[in-house]
C-alpha cells in the first residue's frame, strides 16, 4: 500500500497513517509531510522496515539540507512512477 503524508508530526491524521503502516508499505512525504524526514519521530517506522521517501522539491523549498534527510529524496516524476506501480493507496 502507498501512503501519502502531507502534514507534519503533530497532525492527528498523518500520525494515524504512520501507525497503520506495515513492513512492505511505502510512505511518501509530500508538502509539509517532509518535516517527518528530519524528525526522530520517523525512526521507529524505518526500523520496522517501511520504505519512506520524501519529495525533493518540497524538502528543498523548506530550506533543509539534503544531508539532514533521514529518508531518500525523490522527484515528482519518481513519485508518479511509484503511484503507477501501486494498486492500493491511503491518502
Amino acid at each position, binding site marked *: *500500500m502507498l501512503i501519502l503524508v502531507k502534514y507534519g508530526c503533530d497532525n*492527528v*491524521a498523518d500520525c*494515524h*497513517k504512520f*501507525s*497503520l503502516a*506495515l513492513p512492505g508499505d511505502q510512505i511518501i512525504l509530500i508538502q509539509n509531510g517532509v518535516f517527518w524526514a528530519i524528525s526522530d519521530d520517523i525512526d521507529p517506522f524505518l526500523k520496522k522496515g517501511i520504505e519512506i521517501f520524501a519529495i525533493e522539491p518540497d524538502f528543498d523549498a523548506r530550506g533543509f539540507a539534503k544531508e539532514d534527510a533521514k529518508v531518500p529524496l525523490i522527484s515528482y516524476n519518481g513519485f508518479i512512477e511509484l503511484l503507477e506501480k501501486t*494498486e*492500493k*493507496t*491511503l*491518502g
Partner: protein
Amino acid sequence: MKKVLFVIYQAPCGSIWPNEGFRSAFGMYGEEIEPEVLLIDQAVIAVAQETEPKKLGLFSLKMVQRYIGRYETKVYVDKASLDKFKVKEIDPDYQAEIIDHQQMVDLVHDKDLVIYF
C-alpha cells in the same frame, strides 16, 4: 467493485468534516464503489448518544443515520479513541462496530483506497 474507506478524525461540533465524510461515502453508491466509514480520534464523539451539534445551532448529524440504515453503510469506531474521549454510550442508529488497532490495520489494508476527512 472498488473498496473505499473514509476515515474521519475531526469533531462534529465546530467542523463540517464528519458530515462531509458521510455525505461523500453515500455519494459513492452511484458508482461501482463500496464505501465504509471509520471514525477515529475526536470524530468518535459523533456516535455518542448525547452528541447533537444542533444544540449549538449547527447542522444536525442525525440525518446521516437515515442513510446508514437505507444503504447499510458499515461504520467502524476506534476503541482507543472512544476511551480517550470518554464516550460511554453509543447511539445504536449508527450500527457502529467498535474495533481495536490491529483490526484497523487489517481494515485499511483490505481497501483499494483510503481517504481522510
